[in-house]
């Protein structure tokens, strides 16, 4: 009891401090959290390994991701059956193309890519533009103090109608997202770990190293996205133009 007492006092003091501390502006928090994706604003390339399990069946994908702002181009490198397939996001529009296909096919970002991973999960989303932030609350997550910000989609084109984001209070980076449907039912839980920061000009920017996605409805549905060799590069508009897929189709 003597050993527990100081810990209890410390906890009460912490809770009391948190209770009295006014919550920060949620919109400011989200803008700050977007620094996690900020490197992509300049243009970034990375290889992403996707390892998913659904209904007990493992599945792996190797992707080459090029992203800039709201645009992204994801090419599947392996397995061989899918090699060469391209997913291309230009703003709110998404196309799928595979070698030999005459025209790229418009598809939905919610379409499954591998198990629980949908195409939207490998893209970078500007939360502040796509969602309206609610009131931030404080919560401890895995021993770290975080702000929890509920987000509501501004339009029906958002990948998920409702999102809840956990943002660490020290680094101001998002570490957990709960993605929910209109009724608030959680569809996916995304947990983000960060690797070495990227150098963008004179600054350094955080960049995710591992993203783990789980489905609370299905304990066996789990996927891990590992981001490797990220590089800040200059990506021209043409890389995100669906017409660029035609060049591949019609040499």
């Amino acid at each position: 009891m003597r050993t527990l007492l100081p810990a209890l006092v410390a906890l009460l003091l912490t809770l009391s401090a948190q209770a009295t501390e006014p919550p920060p502006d949620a919109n400011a928090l989200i803008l700050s959290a977007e620094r996690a994706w900020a490197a992509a604003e300049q243009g970034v390339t990375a290889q992403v390994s996707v390892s998913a399990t659904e209904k007990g069946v493992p599945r792996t994908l190797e992707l080459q991701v090029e992203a800039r702002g709201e645009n992204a181009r994801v090419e599947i490198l392996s397995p061989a059956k899918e090699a060469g397939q391209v997913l291309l996001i230009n703003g709110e529009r998404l196309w799928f193309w595979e070698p030999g296909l005459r025209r790229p096919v418009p598809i939905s970002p919610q379409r499954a890519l591998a198990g629980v991973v949908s195409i939207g999960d490998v893209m970078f989303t500007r939360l502040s533009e796509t969602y309206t932030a609610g009131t931030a609350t404080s919560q401890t997550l895995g021993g770290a103090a975080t702000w929890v910000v509920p987000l509501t989609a501004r339009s029906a084109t958002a990948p998920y109608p409702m999102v809840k984001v956990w943002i660490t209070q020290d680094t101001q980076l998002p570490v957990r997202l709960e993605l929910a449907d209109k009724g608030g039912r959680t569809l996916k839980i995304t947990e983000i770990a960060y690797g070495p920061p990227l150098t963008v000009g004179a600054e350094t920017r955080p960049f995710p190293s591992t993203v783990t996605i789980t489905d609370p409805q299905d304990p066996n549905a789990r996927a891990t996205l590992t981001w490797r060799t990220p590089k800040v590069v200059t990506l021209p508009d043409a890389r995100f133009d669906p017409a660029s897929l035609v060049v591949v189709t019609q040499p």
Partner: protein
Amino acid sequence: MTGSWRLGVRNLLRNPRRTLLAALSVAVGSGSLIFTMGYVDHIERYLETTQIHLLHTGHLGVYRAAGYEQAQIRPQEHGFAPEQQAAIAAVLAADPNVERHIPYLVGSGMVSSGCDQLPFRATGLPPADLSWLYTRDVVLREAPELATFVAGGAPWDSTAEAPLVLGQGLARMLNKPLTLREAPEAVGSGFVDCADPSAKASLAQDAWVQLVSETFDGRLAAMDGQVAAHITTGFSEYENNTLLLPLDVLQRFYGTELVTYTAVFLRDAEDIDAKAADLERRLTAAGLDIRVYPWTHPATSPNYTSQVPLLRIIEVFIVLIMLAVVGLGIVNSMTMAILERRKEFGTLRALGYTPDAILGLVARETTALVVAALGVGAVGGVLAALATNALNVRIKPPAVAGTIQFVVQPGLGTSAGISVAIWVLALASTLLVARGQLRRRIVDLLYSEDAR
């Protein structure tokens, strides 16, 4: 003609007005019933033919044990692998009552014109089998409008790599009015910017579409297809999502060698439930975990099984009403005819005719009149049916896509049944009234008031 028959016919001719009225009531009644039943019979045959042949149910459908319910959700686990397909084919090949068996793969996904994108329900079958289905005598006779292509040509003749047949509703919504016949070449190439106002018009100029879906093992896949023809399925439910394509093309698209089910077409499809049970028993004995559905099962034939009972109830009501009207007319005519002849019956009785002999005479008279009138009614009903068919009257029944021709095809069996029913009705009513009169004393009959 024996003396009694001759006497009966002479009696009929003796009072032409009475005979004509009685004959008219029988002829009009029987003709109307034959016409009505001709329409109902045709609709039933139309629905049956459509369900079995053009909605690809077959007389029997062989599925994995839980395959019908699960094949769409877990196609990988609930289809037939090549060795199972071979085992099923071997059992069916040994059955002399099996005319043909067709393997089918069913799947879903999205079809895109380049801008518009819609869900589809794909049915894959070998092109030779599609040709067989669309050129069967029964199909051409009972549902000729559904066995023709609304646009394009026979897909089984196409040399395209992936010739598709689209439901005409799907083709319209995709804005793909042209088929390979009118537009064999693709217009432009590759990506079309749908923000451009002319994009949709440009995409409508060729017959190319793209299909996208998940493969059976969970990958995302897409393929080009060329629209070879448009069809009408006959049902609103399927008009906007039907897509037919060769089995091997659909298997390649979904990355599988599985088929979802085998449709079995029988030479003799009577007592279909017993035949389904028998085939299920034989396939199970061959070590296959299967279930056989007769084409009348609500799961595989929801349209037929929901529409036909309703149709039959309506049919029963209409027939009962018509029979009541016709029956009352006949009973009234015959009763009046008998009452008018009470003095004649008294005279015959006075001359030594027994009541049974007079009843025999009346029965012959009635039969002669009814048979002649039924002949006229049948000819009238058939002529009315032919005239109606020639007029090409269009109707739009509920749940039917577009309009269908109001076709009346009187059947021999139904017409014979109606004729016998009317003859029995007329004979019974006549004999009943005559027997009542013949129980009276001869003197009462001779001095009875003449109804004429």
